[in-house]
């Protein structure tokens, strides 16, 4: 290390070269990057489908693609985005890279299983891609029976197998993280000293481990019913299609929290670092993550309010749904309070974090609309729902993902991204996003059902606005793609701690050495102790 020049220093990227050194790596940082490539690919696959959907909806007549194609487009958009982008997005890429570093570990507890998880995601993804190329699947990402088992003439089985395999990837990642957090923390890293990103990723892992197996068995039953013609949900035999919906949403509602909890973790990190203050109410925010993970399992029936679920079950699920709103609200209030009397920097990650808080607030509040039974009956299965979950998943998860990517980019690559371009992209994405999805709330309230290829004329103006927003949004997403690649070669060399952050991951070199730390860190103070980094204390405000 004393061999001077930065380029000479050995780190995880230059320690070995060649395809084999990547495909057989057990280094969590390299696996994190492998995930990053994979999910970026699926993001653009899903994005291409989204683009075609928005082009089709420019006109009410359905004259860009056929209805069959349109149905496949929205199904494959959902499958690609949810199972192969959003669910692995933050935990498997940034989480993989930084969770061990943030708790001062050399690696995850089971590095080989970690590599296996990535391969499972790739194999699952290949099945899904095969299904898409071979002719597509048209059941909607929810695979409701009996349409998916009996009536659809598309590649349901290949897609289902792909999701099944990707599910195991998710389970193994969650298992690995849980064990790592329990058993691999550095000396002195007590639970109450863990960064909030670790807390939220831990909570996410619990959901992955407890929920995903139910999806797996549901897919097996779906497979048996479609392939062997033995009906479990078949109404012709006396089976109950609503049972499928229960089993599907037992996983798929908590899956929403798989997507958004790690996003919340990133926001906690970013808001703290760029206000240079510990997160207000650290303990409360940490416990709120756990509360969301637990309560998130009690609310799935709110997807079934008009599905012939019993009235009483509807009441119970609506009641419980409001409980899960509270920890989310607490988080938003705490982030806002963190800004108070802080030292606030407008660096790109912080701009994305502001975007997240704003959009997540709107997404969360419209969730309250949907949990209100009498109102949900009107707007369920309309564009109101579409807008709501895009505010959470795109406005929430993707904004936070980009915040995290900008925040940790210097650590991962050793290079800075171009700040001006990055700020511009944050602004463009925020504006494009709102223009795309805000009109959809109104569309839904007006009664425009989702998954419609052809629609009545009176909805056209709002659809045109939405499509216009989508093109802005698409441009916004291409910008980071371009300047990140550019920065790998031309970006400024980043120091080990460009933001003045206090986390352990910033106490080692950028890019980090193979085993993360040259010597085992010993933690002596709480997370977000900026005094130890900045040195002197200057009163502001």
């Amino acid at each position, binding site marked *: 290390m004393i061999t001077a020049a930065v380029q000479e220093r050995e780190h995880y990227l230059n320690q070995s070269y060649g395809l084999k050194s990547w495909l057989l790596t057990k280094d969590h940082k390299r696996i994190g990057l492998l995930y990053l490539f994979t999910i970026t690919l699926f993001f653009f696959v899903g994005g291409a489908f989204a683009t075609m959907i928005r082009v089709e909806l420019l006109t009410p007549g359905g004259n860009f693609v056929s*209805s069959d194609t349109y*149905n496949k487009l929205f199904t494959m958009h959902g499958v690609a985005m949810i199972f192969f982008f959003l669910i692995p997005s933050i935990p498997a890429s940034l989480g993989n890279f930084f969770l061990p570093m943030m708790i001062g570990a050399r690696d995850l507890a089971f590095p080989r299983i970690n590599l296996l998880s990535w391969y499972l995601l790739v194999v699952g993804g290949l099945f899904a891609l095969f299904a898409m190329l071979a002719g597509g699947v048209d059941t909607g990402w929810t695979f*409701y029976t009996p*349409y998916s088992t009996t*009536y659809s003439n598309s590649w349901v089985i290949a897609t289902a197998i792909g999701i099944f395999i990707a599910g195991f990837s998710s389970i193994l990642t969650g298992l690995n993280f849980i064990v790592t957090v329990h058993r691999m923390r550095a000396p002195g890293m007590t639970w109450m000293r863990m960064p909030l990103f670790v807390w939220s990723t831990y909570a996410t892992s619990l959901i992955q481990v407890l929920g995903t197996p139910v999806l797996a068995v549901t897919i097996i039953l779906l497979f048996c019913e479609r392939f062997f013609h033995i009906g479990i949900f078949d*109404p*012709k035999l006396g089976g*109950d*299609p609503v049972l499928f919906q229960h089993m599907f949403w037992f996983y798929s509602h908590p899956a929403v929290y798989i997507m958004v909890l790690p996003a919340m973790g990133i926001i906690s990190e970013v808001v703290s670092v760029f206000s*240079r203050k*510990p997160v207000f*109410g*650290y303990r*409360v925010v940490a416990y709120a993550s756990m509360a969301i993970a637990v309560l998130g399992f009690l609310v799935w029936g709110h997807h079934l*309010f*008009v*599905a*012939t679920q019993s*009235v009483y079950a*509807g*009441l119970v699920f609506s009641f419980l749904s*409001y409980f899960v*709103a*509270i920890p989310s*609200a607490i988080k938003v*209030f*705490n982030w*806002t309070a963190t*800004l108070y*009397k*802080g*030292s*606030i920097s407008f660096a790109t990650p912080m701009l994305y974090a502001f975007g997240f808080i*704003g959009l997540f607030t*709107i997404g969360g509040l*419209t969730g309250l609309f949907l*949990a*209100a*039974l*009498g*109102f949900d*009956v*009107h707007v369920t*299965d309309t564009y109101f729902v579409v807008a709501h979950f895009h505010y959470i998943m795109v406005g929430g998860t993707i904004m936070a993902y980009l915040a995290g990517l900008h925040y940790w980019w210097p650590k991962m690559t050793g290079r800075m991204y171009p700040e001006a371009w990055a700020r511009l992209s944050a602004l463009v994405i925020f504006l494009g996003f709102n223009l795309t999805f805000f009109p959809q709330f109104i569309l839904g*309230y*007006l*009664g425009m*059902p*989702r998954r419609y290829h*052809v629609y*009545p004329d*009176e909805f*056209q*103006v*709002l659809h045109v606005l939405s499509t216009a927003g989508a093109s802005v949004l698409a441009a916004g997403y291409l910008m980071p793609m371009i300047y990140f690649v550019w920065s790998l070669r031309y970006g400024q060399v980043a120091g080990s701690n460009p933001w003045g952050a206090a986390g352990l991951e910033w106490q080692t070199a950028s890019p980090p050495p193979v085993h993360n730390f040259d010597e085992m860190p010993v933690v002596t103070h709480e997370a977000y102790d900026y*005094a130890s980094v900045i040195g002197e*204390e*200057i009163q*502001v*405000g």
Partner: protein
Amino acid sequence: MGSKLPIFPEQASTLAPDVDHLALFLLVVAAFFTVLIFTAIFYFAIRYRRRSDRELPHVQHGGMALEIVWSVIPFGITMVMFGWGASLYYKESRPPDNAIPIYVVAKQWMWKIEHMEGQREINELHVPLGRAVKLTMTSEDVIHSFFVPAFRTKQDVVPGKYSTLWFQSTKPGKYHLFCAEYCGNRHSGMIGWIYVMEPQDYQNWLSGGAPAASLSEGGEKLFTSLACANCHKADGTGRCPSLVGLFGKTVQLADGNKVVADEAYIRESILQPAAQVVAGYQPVMPTFQGLVTEDGVLQLVEYIKSLGETPEDKTRASGTLGERH
């Protein structure tokens, strides 16, 4: 055509204003918190912007009092939302006793509608203004969903069972009917119109055309052609229980349970007779699954309902869901 930019959907049922009031309340709450958060972020971000790279704000740890305030107050507000939404939902799920019964069979990709008087419509539903209407619905293939935005109501239509939806219109006109649950290739073509008519016009419409037979008359024909009466003798001497006056009664089953003889029970008894056998009888009835269409089942149900009524009642088109708790 495309120049319109509507913001509020039409209100055309008794339920619509209720839903809109709830929506307004939700909107006010949401707007308040959105503005609160946005303002706070903007204000703090500008007021406390970083002025020097070395500055370090004074650390203040959380305040429990604040945490409690901003969890308890939102919780209280959400409980209002829950109570309001729940009471509306409960109201939506209980059709009034005097609602006009109409039957709906959904299939890929059309709505088949049958009136008590025998009129059949496809993708159109004519209803009289100001009368409560109760739809009993089932599907022949996949799950569909009956959605009328102007009435603010929606209900999934599931194969293998009945579901119910009711509304009472308040404004004459023509309203969209959508299928809201994705059902395959021509999902977006599975749409239609609800015509709300002045009662007089509705009567004219009902008597116009020449319906083959009323729903229960059709059921009677089926009852005869399927030879149901050979066992289900009206005087109760047959091998199977008499069906006169059955509808709406509580039936004692062979397995000791009790069940109310509603549409779902009668449907099940036709298609799966051995599932719920009446006490004192043998499970000798064959299934009619595959022999009777969903429409046919509905006709039989209506015929059996009509058996329980006195002749005067029979002419009156009214619901028979009287003795429900």
